[in-house]
């Protein structure tokens, strides 16, 4: 799939406008900057372990994606430079199941960006033939679980780890999601 065509301008339900595009190799500084504006709780929810700084190795893992099995979308503010969110999708070898993980700048929360971005990733996954979209959430991440439930995901206990829940839904999304 040609992922370059997966760039565009989105408007959230609150009327907030942002640009979305696949990540590229020179995005490390902007991505590092983003994570310095993510709340400590949200960092823990994203990486499932307590960290203060997202180091080079972690950033590299989010940037060196093959744009096929793995894609990382960046949401950019209207200045075209400020990264306000990242949405990573990683699929299994069969391209049947994909896992999505989103991080957002704390000062851009509450404008519907996460919803719009999750919907965008779901459409992308759908186009790639992915049948099930999953996310691993900390039990304490109520806002993410609530958002996903509203988008038709169901939550169930994570096998063997009572601190986590596995949320998932079948694709495609309904047309008016």
């Amino acid at each position, binding site marked *: *799939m*040609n*992922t*370059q065509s997966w760039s565009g301008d989105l408007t959230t339900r609150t009327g907030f406008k942002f640009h979305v595009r696949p990540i590229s190799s020179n995005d490390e500084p902007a991505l590092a900057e983003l994570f310095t504006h993510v709340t400590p709780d949200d960092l823990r929810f994203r*990486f*499932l*372990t*307590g960290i203060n700084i997202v180091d080079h*190795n*972690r950033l*590299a*893992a989010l940037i060196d994606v*093959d*744009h*096929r*099995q*793995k894609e990382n979308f960046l949401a950019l503010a209207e200045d075209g430079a400020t990264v306000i969110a990242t949405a*990573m999708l*990683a699929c*299994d*070898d069969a391209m049947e199941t994909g*896992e999505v*993980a989103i991080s957002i700048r704390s000062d851009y929360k509450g404008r519907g960006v996460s919803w719009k971005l999750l919907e965008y990733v779901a459409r992308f996954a759908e186009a790639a033939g992915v049948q099930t979209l*999953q996310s*691993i959430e900390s039990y304490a991440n109520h806002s993410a679980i609530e958002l996903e439930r509203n988008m038709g995901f169901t939550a169930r206990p*994570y*096998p*063997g*780890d*009572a*601190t*986590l829940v*596995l949320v998932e839904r079948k694709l495609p999304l309904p047309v008016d999601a």
Partner: protein
Amino acid sequence: MDISGNVSEAQLERLIPRFYARVRDDALIGPVFDSVIGDWQQHLGKLVDFWSSVMLTSGRYKGSPVAAHLKHLPSITPPMFDRWLMLWAEVTAEILPPTTAAALQGKAARIAESLKLALYFRLSPAPGNASRPTPTQS
């Protein structure tokens, strides 16, 4: 064994030390465990609690196995999960009735899948990529 074929606490207390003795003897996965676990006596107690929580819903284990494995991610590779499961199948079959052993094996396989999902989908540095196809650049 109780009437449902479920494992008992006593069986777990016999199984876990024996299984981890086998793990520590294994050339592939033994060194990883030995480099990370300082106090084996304490760790075996934690593992009995874990399996008691998983199989008997005792709720004694409060930790996060996913976070515990993420901490040591660079040294954990996907083939290690298969080796772990192979040893688990051996030891459970040796000392437990077949239905109990099968229940423990099935549960372990699901937990291994969920751990792999968390480890290699989400963060996915080098080890998880090793078995993946060559990227097709767009």
